[in-house]
């Protein structure tokens, strides 16, 4: 199956096809194939990023142990991943609840900053407001090129926050930015498959943090 952004244009479906049952069979076949693609990409990404996850998770655990908080941000679907990450850390299915803030969940803040200073500063201004040395900045971007993400990482890095970025494609600007200390790249060109693999990466990061905190004993 193609991983091109236009991979959804299923070549095996004929334009003249008019049989609903045949289309449903093709759709199901496609769903199976893409589910297999997604699972394979997630497994390969976790495998390839194993050392990076351990490093980042260890550093994040040290921040939490010292009283740090996690700040999460992203655009669009990645904004919902940021929100989901905050929810995972605050309300974990097991382990220790940890302090986390979403930088995408307050429409007053988002629209005020966007309107007054510009959307490229919508996260960095919040990092200025909330971020302290020892906190953790976590950003999701499928492209790795979003200007507001890069500005937020630069601000966070300058203020002594631990910076963790998740992105796709070849990582683009985030992967080569000195401001992103831990950059976990999903090697795919499908936005959807990248987001699924980023979820898996973040769950593994969370799991690593919990393991290290448990090893440290009580807070």
């Amino acid at each position, binding site marked *: 199956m193609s991983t091109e952004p236009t991979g*959804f244009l299923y070549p095996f479906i004929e334009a003249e096809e008019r049989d609903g049952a045949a289309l449903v069979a093709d*759709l199901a076949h496609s769903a199976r194939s*893409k589910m297999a693609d997604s699972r394979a990409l997630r497994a390969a990404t976790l495998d390839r990023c194993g050392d990076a996850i351990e490093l980042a998770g260890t550093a994040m655990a040290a921040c939490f142990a010292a009283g740090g908080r996690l700040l999460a941000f992203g655009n669009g679907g990645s904004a919902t*991943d940021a929100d989901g990450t905050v929810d995972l850390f605050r309300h974990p299915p*097991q382990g220790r609840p940890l302090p986390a803030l979403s930088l995408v969940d307050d429409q007053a803040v988002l629209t005020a900053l966007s309107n007054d200073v510009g959307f490229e500063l919508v996260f960095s201004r919040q990092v200025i407001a909330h971020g302290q040395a020892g906190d953790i900045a976590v950003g999701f971007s499928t492209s790795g090129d979003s200007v507001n993400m890069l500005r937020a990482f630069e601000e966070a890095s300058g203020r002594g926050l631990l910076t963790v970025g998740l992105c796709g494609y070849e990582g683009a600007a985030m992967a080569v930015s000195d401001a992103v200390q831990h950059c976990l790249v999903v090697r795919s060109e499908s936005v959807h498959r990248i987001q699924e693999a980023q979820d898996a990466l973040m769950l593994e990061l969370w799991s690593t943090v919990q393991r290290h905190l448990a090893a440290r004993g009580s807070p």
Partner: protein
Amino acid sequence: MMAVVETSRATRLEEGPAADLAVASLALARRFATGATMWCVAPQWPSHGRHVAVEFVHPVIVGTRALPAVSVDAADAAAAVRLAARPGDILLAVSSADDVCAADLLTRAGAWGLTSLWLGAGSRPSGSPADHVVWLEGVEPAVASRSGDLVLLYHLLWELTHVVFEHPGLLAPEPECTDEVCVTCADEGRVAEVSAVHPDGRVDVVVAGRREAIDASLVTPVAPGDLLLVHAGVAITTLRGAGS
């Protein structure tokens, strides 16, 4: 700690929801083709409700048709959807099977005349009120919610729905049942939501998106918002919140 993404459960994940996804996507595309809006709610995981809505409204693939999808907060979902949805719209709930709020909304969706789709993970719901169920079994719902499994389901729903749009000849709605003695329409009870209780005891309900006066003498007292099972113009029982 838990193993996060286990390759060993591969086969179950693929076979389970693929066929259901295909059928649901065809139904969704047909509803969208008639101008339907999709109302999205994820009581336990609000971020999934917003994510699925943005997928349809702002497609990742340039040139792909934007489709009307709205994320609603679970706390206000019944009021918001009851007021704003039109018969023929779609209700999509993302949750685990034990989510009482999702089950309640999906039950009401039938009264409001909406096509309903329940998407989730974990133990499959038994006796689902939804028209379509797309389920990932054999996984912990809380883990599936963050492992990429759940987002994969609605990514595929979006992708397949757009594939159906490549087939305009298949977008015509399924023929409606007009048979006078049809089991679904006449011989079995239909879910109704009480919309008004008049001082003289008459009760108005909404059934399949249409307002009707019914005889509720067997189930009184009732109040607006109550769910009833109505047979031939008579309420035969009260449905206590779905899931009970």
